[in-house]
């Protein structure tokens, strides 16, 4: 199975990969570090699961000229465009963000309550929105729980 992790922060990505590997030790995890690389990855092939950060640069920071304009809600841009692509992804999506709330074209919605709004707004299979804490472990258990509810065979995709 193939998982796409869209995350520009190395420390956080390492943390998330550990939890993903607990659940699927043999999974192939692709990494995207910007809105652009995320969308290209989604267009290139289907994934069994997408784990998405909300704050992303436009381009990979390592590219010539850096990341471009900062996008606090770059994750929303990934969702917005994914929902309109002809190769629309059907993979379940888990949002893992350090943002306590998400502004979906209007007032901010607490991360915990944003799942339904994102699902309805973009017609994508958004399973959960989780709050990541860089100096705490409280996010791990909800992520484990969410992954345990995702029924994907190891060989699938």
């Amino acid at each position, binding site marked *: 199975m193939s998982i796409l992790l869209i995350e520009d922060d190395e420390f956080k990505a390492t943390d998330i990969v550990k939890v993903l590997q607990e659940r699927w030790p043999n999974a192939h995890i692709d990494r995207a570090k910007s*809105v*652009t690389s995320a*969308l*290209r990855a989604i*267009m290139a092939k289907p994934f069994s699961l997408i784990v998405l950060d909300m*704050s992303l640069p*436009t*381009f*990979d920071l390592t*590219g*010539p*000229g*850096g*990341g*471009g*304009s*900062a*996008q*606090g*809600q770059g994750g929303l*841009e990934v969702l*917005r*465009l994914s929902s*309109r692509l002809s190769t629309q992804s059907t993979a379940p999506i888990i949002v893992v963000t*350090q*943002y*306590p*709330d998400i*502004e979906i*074209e209007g*007032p*901010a919605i607490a991360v915990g309550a944003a799942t339904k709004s994102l699902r309805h707004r973009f017609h994508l299979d958004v399973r959960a929105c989780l709050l990541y804490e*860089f*100096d705490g472990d409280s996010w791990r258990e909800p992520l484990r729980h969410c992954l345990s509810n995702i029924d994907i065979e190891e060989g699938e995709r």
Partner: protein
Amino acid sequence: MSKNSTRSAKHAAANQFRTFFRTNKQRPYWKEMQALRSTITIRELESVCCVVESNPNYPFPGLGNTFPTSAAGVPNVRFRRLKPLTLEKEAAIQIARLNFHEAKVVEALKSLADINNTIKSHLFDHVDDKIKEHKYEFGESLVIMKKELFSAFYRGGLNGLTRRYKTITTGYNNTAWAILCHLLYDQLDPAFNPLRALRHWHAWTRLRPARSEWYTRLIEDELARPPTSQADTASLVLRASGVSLIDLALTIWRLRANDNVSSSSYALLNEDIKAVLESSFTDCALTIPHHYTAADAQLGDIQLFRVAGFFSEFSRISNWRHNVASILFSAPRSTDEANIEWIPEASHGMPERDTPCSDNKFATALTVADALRHVDGEDRDSFDQLADKIADTEQIELYIPIEILEQLCLNDCISGSLLLHFVLRELIYRRSRTPDNELERRLVFMTLFNGASGTTVVERIETISADHPNMARLLASISTRTFLERLFLLMSSVKDVIETRILLCRWLLKQDSVSKESIADELEALERELANLDARSDIDSTRVHVDEESLREWFNETQQANVTRYTQTVMSENRPHDPTWLAKLHPKNVDVRSEEDEEDFSAETQIGSEYILLSIVDATLKAFARDKTFGLDANLSRRIRHGSLSGHVMTPVTRALNRMSDLADSHKDGITGSGDSGIQLTVQRFRTFMLSELDHIRKDIIQISSPSHPHGLIKATWNTAANITYLDAMSARVRSRVMSYSGQYDLFADIYSLCWDFLAPDLAQTRFYMARTFLPFTQQHLYELFNQNTTQAERVVSYSAMVDVLETLQGRILEVCGWFIKPVFRQDKYSLRMLVDSACSIVKEYDDKYQFREQIDVSSDILLNRGSFDVFGDALFVLIGNAARHGKADGIIQVSAEPIKDAEGLVLLLVKSEVGTPDDFDIALARIKTALEIKEKALERAAVEEGSSGLGKLVIVLKRVKSPLVLLAILPNRSELSFTFAATLPIEISVTKERG
């Protein structure tokens, strides 16, 4: 009608209004009037009119207005709660009223016809006299106001119009009369595109509450928007009756001409009135004021549409305007009508005029818009041609309802033409700038360019240009840097974006009909940026920021028409700045009607260049502060409210708290028994408290003030006494520059700078809150927790760790204050003197104990580049902050800077501070030395841990400046009780991205 019926109707009317008979007491009568209107039959109307109309014993002129003598009653607010009846009955009532006043109505119409003939003969000296006589005989009316304004404009241009507007509205500023006058003023104003005026007023009426229908219905009618139903028509008839009998007669005449009123209803109208309407108000050749003739003596046909509004009492002109309105407003035709030849009746039925039009842009746009409404078939080439025509048609989006555009996008027949699909998406986005509409536009663009794989954007545009040059120019103009950056599937890096835009600029420079000067400027800036792509500084990433490039793009797209109107108005006013204009907006200076009219028109009834500028500033400030993509709110959201604030404060504070907790563990045996110690309890509770408080600040305090964030400290408003002063000064400055440059002046830079000026008090308030409210509150709470939860022995053991937490907290919160500083605008050189002044002023805000006086000896000639400006900024805040912290509260801080003679490009910066006592001197010196002697390995840690002095961080910053001559030292002088920080820094620094 039988005598009995007549008598009973008269009695019913008299009885209904018995309480108003010969009464001096003013009170509402609309309920009684509505009851009578509902109950009387059409046959009884004549006798009821005998009782009610123009009866001096009643406090009302009749069942509607008659010949009002004062503009205060036009339209009459006291009829506003009347509800329209069925069209048949409403028309019958109002026609009966006209019949009752038949003689005077006929005379009034003849008088109006005479005025029209005098206008047609261009005898404007006589027009004013005739209008005066007419008003004396027949009172005020909307149609006469039109003639007055038209005549004033014809004779005196915009200045004449402005003067007449003021004469007409003086004393009635806050009334529907003034609103109607303002609407007519906007329609005549040569600097205002009449279609923009129409859209503006249409949007304005839609924002008004339903209870405002008594005058908004009249505005809609003036905008040529025809009634869409019988109820709508009945409403218009009722509202026209609240204006004057002459307006009522002309409204019924027009409605009949457009088949909105049935022939059977119209047949009830008195024959004499009908005769004068038919003979004098059927057709006329439009008189076009010469002020509409462009500089090259050409007259645009859009002026016909504008002027037609002032002669819309003529049935043929009214018919034509209705046809135009059907293109401007109506929904798409049904499918069975979709194959109709797309020849618009509107342009063919153009009225005659006394001056030939050499520019047919209006007719062309109407034709194109109508073609789009009827698009059908599968001929891709013709769709591509239509797209090219649309791309070449100025402001075509004003001619097509957005609903039509949206429906067309879903139409299968256009799917074969990506050019037409894109242009439709572009028009939708111009009309409604939502993220979804923006994405749809980008998606079609990406499909259009992805289709030709292997070719670049510029190559594809070249190809398109061969057959569709207008479309190619549109695509290239839209592909700004910001737009390209969002083409995720086409662009792969910032470099890619810049290179593409450079090629596009070069391509555009080869084209005709583009603004070559601005493209050349942009090209030069892009080439410079590309050459220095690796030397960009991200040091300001936590400071408040607004994306100036995107704001400018927004400004160009949405405000350009207003800017043009502003500059043209300034040029035609040709007068000095009016220093009293802002005072007119103050509620106490506005004429307020005493009666039922509680509507606030104070802003909408003001005219002149200052008010146009105010509306531009107001809109720009809203985008500047609140736009979710590029505005301040977006920056606060992504850089401060989320993650950064909590992380920046809590990471080092948590580490300091952990050290405190570790200390408790290491002394556990000697302090307590089992379980958490008092220190650990303090640490846990303080951490929880801090997280909760920071969350509160994030959610409620560092917010743009709004109903959902009432405690937000950032008001972002121009409407304060201090900001009005800024606005007034800017208005005077810009006005004089517009006049000196003959209208060729770019306002954006002034308005952008003004927005930051408006924001300065809010930022200061936010800094003040963090330093003076939040910091003492958190420190006090830590003290209380510490004292409540710990034993004496624990306090002794952990006191120094607790002080470390306090100082870390203080350092971090003061650093957060530094985020709320107005950023400097990107320029080539920055003044060090200005930076020192700002740093002193801001450091003083940090603590009310800082009462130092500064002595600054820095030449204004020392100029820094962007990189050194950031480094000097960091150095000054740290050094002056330390000088204030360790120095005497009311002492003197001396700041000096001078170039070092033997080292070219190097500046010696000295910050000297007095200390109160020898003991204070020793303590301060020990702390400073500790901070400066930070070990190499601890440098990285210091960036997040070290709190109070900031000196460790400064050491890191200076180490990253790649120059062997950069130094930082402390020069203590115990005998003088002073210490001096000395730093040498280069005035030109190139900073790499990694540094941030």
